């Protein structure tokens, strides 16, 4: 007879057994987590070192986390192991007084390989499923919802609709964020450069050819406007 336990896919702070990405962060302490995530997520170091409050250790219970999302201050109460993606998708309504519901960023692979959760943090794209919410404090977080505040779509969004660069639409917010970041950092990007920018985004319906066409067109429009 063989005894089996459910694999420790997401070890809790209360029962830290097994090794996983987040368990690894916990074992290293949050200082290590911050450094690792910055390197993986590619946010770029802000150079300020790690918040002394974090070095004392936090959790395992939920803590107050203050985030700046699309220019607005929001507060969430989440366990330190909660990702930026999950905090914005699931916890804003539960733990915050801010009446926002940011479910535009999607959870698809939940381990940094598909791009559906792409956000722009301090000017660079990150997979928000590999950034912890606590670690995103003090950073400028942009989500897909922030692109069309006031109801006017961003040129990238307009071209996605016009070129039909989307089908089921589940990957689309991530594609849009990667494309916006690409064109902001590389105005006038060529189709080849854009293709590389979008390589970290996976689509199952097969929208890639027309998504590329949409971003090329949006890039031309945005450059013309400068």
């Amino acid at each position, binding site marked *: *007879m*063989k*005894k*089996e*336990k*459910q*694999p*420790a*896919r*997401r070890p*809790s702070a209360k029962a830290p057994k097994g090794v996983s990405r987040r368990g690894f962060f916990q074992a290293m302490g949050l200082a290590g987590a911050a450094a690792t995530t910055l390197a993986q997520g590619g946010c770029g170091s802000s150079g300020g070192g790690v918040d002394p409050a974090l070095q004392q250790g936090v959790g395992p219970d939920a803590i107050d986390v203050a985030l700046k999302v699309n220019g607005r201050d929001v507060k969430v109460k989440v*366990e330190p*192991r*909660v990702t930026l993606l999950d905090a914005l*998708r*699931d916890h804003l*309504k*539960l733990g915050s007084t801010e009446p926002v*519901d*940011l*479910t*535009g*960023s*999607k959870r*698809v*692979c939940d*381990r940094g*390989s*598909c791009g*559906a959760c792409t956000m722009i943090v301090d000017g660079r794209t990150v997979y928000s499923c590999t950034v912890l919410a606590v670690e995103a404090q003090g950073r400028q977080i942009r989500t*897909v*919802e922030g*692109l069309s505040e006031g109801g006017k779509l961003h040129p990238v*969004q307009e071209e*996605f*609709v016009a070129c*039909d660069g*989307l*089908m*089921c*639409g*589940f*990957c*689309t*917010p991530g594609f849009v964020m990667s494309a916006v970041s690409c064109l902001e950092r590389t105005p006038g990007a060529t189709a080849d450069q854009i*293709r*590389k920018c979008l*390589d*970290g*985004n*996976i*689509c*199952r*319906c*097969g*929208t*890639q*050819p*027309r998504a*590329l066409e949409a971003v090329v067109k949006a890039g031309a429009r945005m450059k013309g406007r400068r």
Partner: protein
Amino acid sequence: MPYKWPEKRQVIGTKVPRLDGALKVAGKAKYSYDRNLPGLLHGKILRSTVAHGKIVTLDLAPAEAMPGVKAAMSIKKVGDIVRFGGDEVAALAAETEEQARDAIRAIKVAYESLPPLASEEAGLERNPPPPPQTTEKGLKIEEAFAKATVTSEGFYGVAVITHVCLETHGLVADWKADDDLVVYCSTQAVGNTRNSLKNHGPFKAIANLKVTCETPFMGGGFGSKFSADLQGTVAAELARKAKRPVKLMLERDEEHWAGGNRPSLFAKVKAGADKDGKLVALDVESYGTGGNSTGVDMRLPYIYLPEGHRIRNRDVNVNAFNKRAFRAPGSPQACAVMDQMMDDLAHAGGWDPVEFRLKNLPGQGNPLVNLSPIWEKELKMGAEAIGWKQGYHKRGDPAAGPIKRGLGCAINTWGGGPGGAQASCTIAPDGSVEVRCGTQDLGTGTTTLVPIVAAEILGLEIKDIQGKIGSSAYPDAGGSGGSTSCGGVSLAVGVACMKALEQIFAKAAPALDAQPGDLEAEGGKVYVKAAPAKSLSWKQACALLGAQAITAVGDKADKEIQGMAASGVGGAQFVDVSVDVETGQVRVNKVVAVADCGLVMNRLLCESQVYGGVVQGLSLALFEERRLDPRSALMLNPDMEWYKLAGHSDLGEIEVHLLDYPERGVIGIGEPPVIPTQAALANAVTNAVGVRVGVLPITPKRVLDALAKK
């Protein structure tokens, strides 16, 4: 009077951007995964960690005592058998997802391991072996081969793949009252999802139970989402227990384990052609798996019909989740076997592969004979577009250096045709129009299709129509499968609008001093055909209804629908690749897809379906394979880094040519374009490197192994 499409079409066949596009690109489209209801609980499922075993311990009590847990239930009981890694054992719901995950790990469970079947080959060697199912048609196989002057033999196959819907399976269950359940489900069939919940054992006893399935948006299905499924009924049971809404969406690994997969097919093939290059004989010994209790979807022989054939197939069981329909069930596998065989036979006889296919297109006696002129046109168009004349060379690129270039092609067919559907059209005295249909939009564009059809029939603009789909509360329409939604929905909506318009004409005729049959609706006007100056604006005409709105119902089953929809499409695809014979790496240079779907309803979105089929086909051809550990039968790649999908840089240039045959009516295009890509790519690789790789996906290792055997 039979109903038919207008001969002069203003909206149908134009390029209409999808109407829900703005919501989707802004992140404002609410998918099931995005439903955060007040008081929402999060559900999770405990899944077996052995692929085959008996449950010997199962105790939920420790989990029920965990923080935040509000309801728990067992799915299997002690003594039950688990049949695949990830089989469902128990479930619970808690205040937060994190708490639910912790609590799942607190459930006490133990298994007695049983020997697993981890591969098709292991399944074949089982004692007693699975029996072959044999079909033989036409000449006896020996007589057929006696006619052949050229023969070829090969081993071709396609591995099991999984659906990888980006929005995983699952739903949010919300009991509005004791007998009123609303679910937000990621489904291809709102009606059947409702029915599956109504008929769920524990709910059958609830008197007058009302179930509504709301699915305004869903993130991909590809054949795997036709009911509430186990996780759906579990979520509804937990919600009922906890008296709170429950969200239960599968995680990525669970989606790979239990969200659906496409059966494999491996075939040892011998084929023969006569001296004129006519396929005369086909002998196939095949096997494949559809999971722990189902088999392959056998569609051999595919398209080409020899004078005699024999197919001996063994359905093999392995300890993995059972198959689900996947985009054109059985056809991509059959095409991968058949069209690779055709290529090898052409090579053996020294015939050009395109010419050889043209010569063997279905003739009299083959039920697909009517499609042959379409294939002929498509093969010629595709060959021209890919540069076959200039680029094709005999097998094996003679160019110096490690990079070899090659061309390949394949053809496909699929039924499509109209699925069951009803729709209603309501016209109010103020001229507003609302069309309701209980279908759903998988990303295929049904949301946009409904107003296109209504605007065409009523002579209005798309913005004048309120189209309502994605709810089981609307008139019943079937699930979106088999490429039948476009046909069925177009018919139901079209006829509902035609019937409503008849009522408007009846009111308007006296005012225009004409008979109802003399009237036409076009450009926002109702006018007398013979004297267009005699007209009413749409609003004026509708005002004649008085105080009461009218509603008409259209049904695909209406006997008076003639020639508005059909079934049966042909397609052809050509692929241009470069292969590095030192690394085995395949690079796609270009794909040309020529597709047919009868009457094109929305050219922009229709083309997207073809692009999508090609992209998915390339991904399947190059990367995708469900890998089971050979000892434990546990899936080794239940994620998205080792289960690879194609990205932008993997695709090359894709060129789509859409044929339009309005006289055939609506057919449906969702599935056919995914069928031939794998075979066409495999043939291009063989043309480049000079050897047959045979089994897909064509990984660098398989290319190098094939070259080593040269």
